[in-house]
């Protein structure tokens, strides 16, 4: 293992009773990386993070933080970490300053270092105004900032943040992500979120988990390319409300659909919802092809009016949905079928299995 691997998880599993929350997760995060940890609700993100922060122990597998095993040296692990749990659970009766002081004391910061760090952290998190306030009086956004501040107070090398931006407003989010990018130059950040935009702004790499497994791990471009498709949006003028400049007859919807289907390389043609002035369609094709010229030609030959044509590679969001939606109903009982491919085909069976197991438990 190279020394640059700061977070290392190998075959990490966690069962809660008969429910397998994390199922043999493998990944590594190197120094200087910000990695987005993505997945639908209940995919096992928080559980994984809790294992990494030594809050719970894995059922099997190993994890190392900065070379320290989470199982054997939990204290050493926690010293190296800044952790913000989901929804920032803080002591409500303490003031912001008291809380930071408390966290700093337990992280063994001495008085002068604390003052220095507190200043920096308060500025970063924008807490100057509320420093003396009790945490219970703060809005959720501010609580989250306090949670961030305590995670950063010791200037840790590794940050594990569980949905750190969920309660922030868009401006705060942007600021925070900027800060993270700056911070991550010589540090390591594992950041879980639902918000794919954020991942696209802040992270170069993402790990997508679904149902307790890693379904994608790589740079964002790699992940985007994962589904191997490109998408076209085509709209054709349908009515004569605005001056009609077409040479042919007004197109009807099935005609357009048929025409588009006839284009070589187009795999899926769906109609998109529009008003009655245009027909809009969505096409997909293989990744390496470019059908724009063909589409234009075909429509122009008919004498119709092309209002819009654009091509995009799939967004992260599409990939995310593609990778995770199909798996939603996979069996997650311990000892249940493990192969996602096999399971996808017999969804119905799985549901029955689930019920049975619950009865048994």
């Amino acid at each position: 293992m190279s020394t640059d691997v700061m977070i290392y998880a190998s075959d990490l599993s966690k069962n809660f009773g008969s429910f397998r929350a994390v199922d043999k997760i493998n990944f590594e995060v190197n120094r200087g990386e910000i990695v987005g940890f993505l997945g639908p609700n209940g995919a096992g993100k928080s559980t994984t993070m809790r294992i990494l922060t030594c809050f719970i122990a894995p059922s099997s597998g190993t994890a190392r933080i900065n070379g320290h095993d989470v199982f054997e040296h939990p204290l050493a692990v926690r010293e190296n970490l800044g952790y913000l749990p989901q929804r920032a659970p803080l002591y409500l009766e303490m003031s912001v300053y008291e809380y930071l002081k408390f966290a700093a004391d337990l992280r063994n910061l001495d008085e002068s270092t604390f003052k220095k760090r507190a200043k920096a952290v308060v500025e970063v998190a924008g807490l100057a105004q509320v420093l003396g306030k009790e945490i219970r009086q703060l809005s959720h956004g501010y609580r989250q900032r306090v949670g961030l501040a305590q995670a950063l107070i010791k200037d840790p090398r590794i940050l594990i943040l569980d949905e750190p931006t969920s309660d922030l407003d868009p401006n705060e989010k942007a600021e925070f992500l900027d800060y993270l990018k700056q911070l991550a130059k010589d540090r390591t950040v594992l950041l879980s979120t639902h918000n794919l935009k954020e991942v696209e702004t802040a992270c170069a790499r993402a790990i997508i988990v679904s149902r307790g497994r890693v379904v994608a791990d790589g740079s964002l471009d790699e992940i985007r390319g994962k589904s191997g498709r490109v998408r076209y949006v085509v709209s054709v003028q349908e009515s004569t409300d605005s001056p009609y400049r077409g040479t042919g007859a007004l197109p009807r919807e099935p005609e357009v659909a048929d025409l588009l289907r006839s284009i070589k390389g187009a795999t899926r043609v769906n109609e998109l919802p529009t008003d009655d002035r245009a027909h809009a369609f969505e096409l997909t094709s293989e990744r390496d092809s470019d059908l724009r010229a063909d589409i234009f030609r075909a429509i122009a030959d008919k004498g119709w009016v092309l209002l819009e044509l654009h091509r995009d590679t799939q967004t992260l969001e599409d990939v995310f949905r593609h990778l995770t939606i199909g798996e939603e109903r996979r069996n997650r009982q311990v000892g249940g079928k493990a192969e996602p491919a096999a399971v996808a085909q017999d969804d119905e069976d799985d549901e029955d299995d689930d019920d049975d197991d619950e009865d048994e438990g």
Partner: protein
Amino acid sequence: MSDKKKEEEEKKKKLAAAAEEDDDDEDDTSDDDDSSDDDEEAASDPKPPVKAASKASKKDEEEDDEEEEEEEDEKPAAAAKAPAPSRGAPPQVRASFAKNLWTITKREFAGYFNSALAYIVISASMVLFGLYFFFYQGGIWQIDRASLGRMFDFVPAWICFLTIPLFTMRAMSEEKRMGTIELLITLPVRDSEVILGKYLGALGVLVVQIALLTFYPLVMFKFPWTMGAFDWGPFWSSIFGLFLMGSAGIAIGMLFSGMTDSQIVSYFATAATLLILFFVGSLVQFVKGWPGEVISFFSFQTRYEPFARGLIDSRAVVYFLSVTVLCLLESFRQLEGRRWR
């Protein structure tokens, strides 16, 4: 600040001196109570706490040990400062057991007084004790002696029923419900520090409550009233007994608090247990033979009685301490168990 600097310099010297000698005996085990932590200490401490060389020479051994223990508490802190903390590479030295314990205890204790609960419980109890003492069945006037004996018939039961459960109900339950336990435990603290810190915090509040009882004799027999020559002996022993019983009770309360995330459940479980433990002693007169002995063995009331009469019963001391230790160990085990669920 200047004190700290001096300390630091001293420590550096000692460390340098000690480097020449081999550090031999019982060094860093003293502030580690669970064995699993020992290796971490070694792994993460760049400078394992070493014995002060100057002290190691043949001096009074006992004195030596005491001083050392104190120093050990501060040593990791000093070691943290020794390598100049460069930005980005913070020294990875954990605070000592005692320091973390103190931090948590302080927070817990302050937590009680940040909410109205502690004030209300303490002041209401004080008023009630006063009323009971002076007016219930004729009050002190009836017995016509300069003694607070009556008071200590009532106070222990009250403390078991109300004070202790109210003070301990939030200890772990609230953390569990709010999820704050996650943040606390993912800080570099040992589970034992968390349990012990919380315990001492709650015990601290109870000590405040018990200490306030000394106002009664002070006011009645010293100033402004002097109602006679007060016999302080039984009073102090009663207070001591209350403290012992209270520490056992709080340990029991902590245990129940850790079992649930509902404060109400925690309260009633603790109150019921303590009341049963207390009043089961009244059954002794009806139950003969070994069952009676068993009951009197476990009853807080029979254990407490000698203290109220001015007698410090070593068996009772051992009993209360054992209950405390046992419950704390169980709480610790419980907290550790979270990782496996």
